[in-house]
């Protein structure tokens, strides 16, 4: 979403009650999606009332971008093979939706997915959903043990200037609401107290206090060359042999992992077929297999592909592939930590 609109970039303090009432008023025209707590996990899902929202959530297993904009599985085409072939594309029904409470890492992850699916070649399935999605981001109020967004420039407060619609910062019983798009300016019809220098100072103090809480860090400077020069560093094989199960959890929970597979399903009478795409993972043995060869037949090579794709290969989209959400670390069943792998290499050869 690179298009730049001219709009009033207002910043207002709005009571949370008013804000949620406003959200509910939008449900007439929009699907409302936000974080909901069940027992001890929070997930993004569709809501029928803003009362269900759990805005103080820590993190979710799956990012909202890879649930509601880039689908885990979707239909691409329908075919009929009755003598002749007929092809019909299955474009998504583009429901208008609002995703509220998107953390800075996950907002940046959506901006990363934009670079892939709205780049030189556009993916109409993604594009249609992206256009119909209003993103209301929420600055973080806490730092978890696997968060390292401050090291990759994606958080804990959102800095991106466009590509989303509103930004919330928690001010106790109020939100500091910043308008980031023209359509949000049109939609947001409640008047709050205009935020002045004092509020902005409080906001920046909140950010500073969070910045001191990070336990996990990574120095990404020079990682590009460092990885390139250490393709055969023992850490790849050791980690792969000692820990990695090639289970693909890291890829599935990663908010920027975009790889997909295309699969066809044929009807029983062999007369029709449907073509789907679904998430795929570079950790799968057959991911890079061709006839007579497999370019990443070894577990170490597959692990190296994931880690280097997240932490370097920056030239691919001009930005680092990781948003520092820490999900791949949290959900790795054997505790592989990409920041530790980078540090292991840096220890031998400081950047």
């Amino acid at each position, binding site marked *: 979403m690179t298009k730049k609109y001219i709009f009033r970039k207002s910043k207002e303090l709005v009571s949370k009650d008013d804000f949620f009432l406003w959200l509910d008023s939008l449900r007439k025209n929009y699907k409302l999606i936000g974080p909901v707590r069940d027992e001890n996990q929070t997930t993004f899902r569709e809501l029928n009332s803003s009362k269900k929202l759990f805005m103080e959530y820590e993190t979710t297993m799956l990012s909202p971008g890879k649930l509601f904009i880039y689908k885990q599985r979707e239909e691409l085409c329908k075919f009929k093979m009755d003598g*002749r072939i007929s092809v019909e594309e299955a474009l998504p029904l583009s429901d208008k939706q609002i995703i509220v409470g998107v953390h800075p890492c996950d907002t940046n992850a959506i901006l990363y997915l934009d670079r892939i699916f709205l780049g030189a*070649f556009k993916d109409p399935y993604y594009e249609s959903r992206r256009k119909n999605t209003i993103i209301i981001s929420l600055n973080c109020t806490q730092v978890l043990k696997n968060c390292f967004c401050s090291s990759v420039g994606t958080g804990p407060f959102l800095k991106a200037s466009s590509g989303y619609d509103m930004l919330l910062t928690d001010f106790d019983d109020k939100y500091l609401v910043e308008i980031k798009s023209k359509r949000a300016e049109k939609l947001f019809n409640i008047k709050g107290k205009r935020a002045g220098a004092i509020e902005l100072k409080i906001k920046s103090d909140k950010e500073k206090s969070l910045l001191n809480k990070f336990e996990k860090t990574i120095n990404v400077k020079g990682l590009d060359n460092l990885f390139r020069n250490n393709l055969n560093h023992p850490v790849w094989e050791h980690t792969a042999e000692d820990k990695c199960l090639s289970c693909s959890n890291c890829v599935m929970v990663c908010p920027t992992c*975009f*790889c*997909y597979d295309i699969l066809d399903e044929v009807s029983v009478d062999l007369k029709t077929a449907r073509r789907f795409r679904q998430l795929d993972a570079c950790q799968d043995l057959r991911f*890079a297999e061709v006839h007579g060869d497999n370019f990443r037949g070894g577990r170490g090579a597959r692990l190296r592909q994931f880690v280097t794709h997240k932490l370097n290969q920056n030239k691919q989209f001009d930005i680092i592939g990781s948003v520092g959400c820490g999900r791949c670390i949290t959900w790795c069943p054997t505790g592989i930590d990409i920041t530790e792998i980078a540090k292991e290499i840096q220890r031998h050869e400081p950047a």
Partner: protein
Amino acid sequence: MNLLKPIKAKIKDIKQECEDIKTYTLFVKGLFGAMPGQFNMVGYPGVGEAPISLSSVVYNGCFEHTIKGVGRVTKFLERFRKGDEILIRGPFGKGWPLDKVGGKDILLIAGGVGLAPIRPVLQKILSKRKSFGKISLLYGAKNEKRVLFINEFDKWQKNISLYLTVDEVVQHPPVSPLAERGSNVGLVTDLLDKVKIDSKNTFAFICGPEIMMRFVCLRLLAMRVDKSNIYVSLERRMKCGIGHCGHCQHFGLFVCKDGPVFSYDQVCGLPDGLL
């Protein structure tokens, strides 16, 4: 435009090149243009798609794919007859850099089915023969029964130098048009000993198994051809062809959209490859 939606292609002709390799002449309605070295995703509903380079230039909406039946899709294609319909998406990727080689000498080096993506560039060169310098085709096949486009060699040889080799001879005494040409037995790299080149003025376009391209590139470097004048066409698993599905990623590069033709200095030394 939805680049994931395939279009229908009619099979105008099928030529059996050898035991398990066929050349399909396809026709699509509407505008279709492709550069030598580009590829299509060729497939059928319910079976899937495979990335296949065009093995000819496009003429009147017709073009060719030379396909060896080895996987799910390519084996399935073997059942089709003239007049049947299949699906394609494309063309995708960057082809051979013909714009950079005007007036230069070109070594075209192919191994096995790797001759297929080289053939359209050769056709293009032959149609504008005077715009290029010395052209040599070095071609290695597994054995004398697996040689592609053998009927066209006479025509080619009138305008370019042809060097042929087979890895092994399976028929004794060797009865094949190849034997009459005094072709070699040995690897395609051996053929490089036979050509004399002006290394400063020479470009090389290579396609074949990656391990073959590795050694051809090394030999060319030893012959003082510049890394940036050597071009290779890579093969990777692909699902989309447009840099989205991620399968063909090669340390930051997408083989489908940044390639499949790369200069050697772009891909030399990258992990998970042999170059």
